């Protein structure tokens, strides 16, 4: 062994030193998952959005780093009746193929999204649109069948990105858009390279010449790559356990921010004993969320009490609404006919590390009120089929990363199987209420109703954990949209 080791050491000592750090205008980013195709109008996967959304393709409206809707490819819009919206397109915006973006492109893109034949993943976002009229090359009017409060937000979603019609057949492998970066190459299984779009419609941006996304699924390998200097930033994939150590390391800066990813434990509302609201409340009272965040997330993550996340303008802090109270939990269980508790299976997919860890802490906590939990780990594909699609489960844990996803609670077929006519009515009203104050009131009512009915246990917001080399600036701290906007990112001179 000693000789073998010596030989290896000698052989490796002859290697030249690793190449020096990349030039200042380049950025190498680690991401955990390779996108399942690059077409934002075909897959809502966050791995696709992380590369393409805001960087390669953009929409008429944008959710900015503070979560505000701002005009983007449309320089402004107006509406007199909240039913007819006229967008005035920014002039001189060019697609990566050199052609100028015109109103006809916008019509083509939204018509295609509305067409069920095209398999858009979220056609419901466009269901209210009646007519789309191109007034001239830079003016387009959308006429809605019904008032839709989220219409502008829907125009800002990843499925509403504007691309040239001639590129529609190659979106999956060679997306073309108006973004600050063009697709350079996609080496399947290894990396995606984006290169600067020198013709970008925002002057002075982007600041980087080249961005390489490297797919490193293993968190330990990602940490090693960061420490060895092979990647400049780990955007997603490092666990909270890596953070304390990296915060002390002078070579790195750690960004801990908010996201829209609410981690919940869902209870199957259609199945005994969780069809009884007293049982669901008991489970909620039996959970000490602060300890869950400490035990499963190294204290990183904000405790929440309802669905709406802190980056949403209608967020209300409900984290204290149903505080940890095991005595009350036991009383509620006894009232519901389970004085000695019951047994339940918790199905989690270990592809998302936090689900298993959170489950272990919850199982321990709930055993104290007599709820005995058996944790069953299943693979992601199975989780999607059995839990998400068929609601074949008692309990499960997952993070819901989508912003503005309160609609899920108004859908009795969704895997929560939560069916409340009162909540559904409130939600329908909120969808057609445009006045901000009135809508906020409806959102408060909805959140209170959710707390009362406890269809799921809202545990915590999964924090945004990004680690970069010192000197990288311009990254978003919080992630109000499912995008890693790199347009303003640069190296400090």
């Amino acid at each position, binding site marked *: 062994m000693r000789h073998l080791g010596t030989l290896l050491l000698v052989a490796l000592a002859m290697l030249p030193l690793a190449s020096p750090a990349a030039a200042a205008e380049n950025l190498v980013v680690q991401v955990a998952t390779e996108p399942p195709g690059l077409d934002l109008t075909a*897959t809502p996967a966050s791995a696709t959005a992380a590369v393409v959304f805001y960087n390669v393709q953009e929409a008429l409206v944008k959710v900015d780093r503070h979560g505000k809707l701002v005009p983007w490819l449309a320089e402004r819009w107006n509406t007199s009746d909240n039913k007819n919206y006229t967008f005035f397109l920014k002039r001189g915006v060019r697609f990566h193929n050199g052609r100028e973006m015109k109103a006809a492109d916008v019509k083509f893109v939204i018509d295609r999204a509305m067409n069920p034949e095209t398999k858009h993943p979220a056609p419901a976002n466009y269901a209210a649109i009646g007519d789309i009229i191109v007034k001239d090359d830079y003016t387009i009017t959308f006429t809605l069948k019904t008032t839709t409060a989220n219409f502008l937000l829907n125009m800002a979603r990843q499925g509403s990105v504007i691309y040239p019609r001639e590129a529609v057949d190659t979106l999956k492998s060679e997306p073309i858009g108006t973004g600050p970066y063009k697709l350079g190459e996609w080496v399947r299984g290894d990396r995606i390279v984006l290169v600067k779009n020198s013709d970008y419609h925002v002057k002075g941006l982007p600041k980087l010449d080249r961005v390489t996304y490297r797919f490193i699924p293993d968190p330990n390998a990602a940490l090693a790559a960061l420490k060895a200097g092979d990647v400049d930033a780990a955007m997603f994939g490092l666990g909270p356990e890596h953070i304390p150590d990296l915060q002390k390391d002078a070579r790195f800066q750690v960004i801990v921010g908010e996201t829209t990813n609410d981690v919940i434990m869902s209870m199957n509302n259609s199945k005994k004993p969780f069809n009884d609201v007293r049982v669901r409340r008991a489970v909620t009272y039996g959970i000490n969320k602060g300890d869950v965040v400490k035990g499963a997330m190294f204290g990183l993550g904000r405790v929440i009490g309802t669905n709406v996340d802190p980056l949403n303008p209608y967020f209300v802090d409900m984290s204290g609404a149903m505080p940890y109270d095991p005595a009350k939990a036991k009383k509620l269980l006894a009232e519901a006919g389970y004085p000695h508790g019951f047994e339940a299976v918790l199905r989690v997919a270990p592809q998302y590390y936090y689900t298993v860890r959170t489950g272990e802490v919850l199982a321990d906590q709930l055993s104290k009120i007599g709820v005995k939990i058996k944790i069953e780990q299943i693979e992601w594909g199975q989780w999607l089929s059995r839990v998400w699609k068929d609601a074949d489960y008692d309990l499960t844990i997952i993070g819901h990363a989508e912003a503005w996803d309160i609609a899920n609670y108004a859908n009795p077929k969704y895997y929560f199987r939560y069916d409340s006519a009162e909540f559904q009515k409130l939600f329908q009203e909120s969808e057609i209420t445009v006045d901000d104050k009135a809508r906020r009131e409806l959102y408060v009512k909805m959140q209170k109703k959710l707390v009362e009915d406890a269809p799921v246990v809202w545990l915590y917001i999964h924090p945004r954990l990004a680690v970069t080399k010192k000197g990288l600036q311009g990254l978003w701290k919080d992630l109000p949209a499912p995008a890693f906007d790199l347009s303003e990112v640069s190296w400090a001179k």
Partner: protein
Amino acid sequence: MRRYIARRVAAFVATLFFVSGLVFVVVRVLPGDPALVIIGPEGSPEAAARLREALGLNRPILVQYTEWLARALRGDLGVSLQYDVPVGRLILSRLPVTLPLTVMAAVLMAVTALPLGLYAARRHRRAGDYLAMVVSQIGIAIPGFWAGLLLILLFSVHLGWVQSGGFAGWSNGLWPGVRSLLLPAIALGFFQMAVLVRATRSSVLDVLREDYVRTARAKGVSELSVIAKHTLRNALIPIVTVAGLQLGQLMAGAIILESVFALPGLGRLALGAITARDLPVVQGVTLFVASTIVLINFAVDLLYLVLDPRIRYE
């Protein structure tokens, strides 16, 4: 011999047929739906159902298999659901990583295991033997992925000699490519080396006890000649058998190490395809690996003829 080869070819075709049918059924019977994985929980089950229909996954399994087989016989393995690229092209694009990785690991295994096993046998029950056995025991006890992480920690993070993962490609010259495969090849080869050391040692020990070795020594034949001519060649058949099986295992080990070292090889392609339920890719890679293993076994059988002229295949 001709009949033997014809028999082997027929067995080869039958194996591939069997494997393809089995994989086809297994990946479709498993819970999990490629359309659901592509759409994900951010989409809706209705959107997934539409995609499923469009991908032709609602048709009966037998119809799907017959269609796939008819195309596969013409050399068309279908198109990846995830990448939208022909499966054949995808497999070919991964070979420049997995093939050299496996070959480097195999060479490493052979050049360390044979001398070490021989040395241990010659020093039977002496310090050298025990030391070699301890090394081999360590090799068997350390899983490849952990060895990989330890190597990254030492050579990439602390010493900074090689990159921690990723593949530099062959277009920049031979050395950058070899350098990015060096650590994974060591991690991959170490375990198999440990197994082969044990096989070599026991096989050589058996031969050393043979009468003809004693006779050769009694005749005054030099020790070098005793080992090289009389012992090694006779000991090689069991060693080659084990090594042949290990080549297959190296390909399986590559799946894990390609993930640890973030290498765009065949193993990671297979793993990603299984997770994403990318059925045409799972099918294509399995067939490719099965063919390779059958061919390796065939090559091992032919090697027996060279090693031992007494062996005849009729």
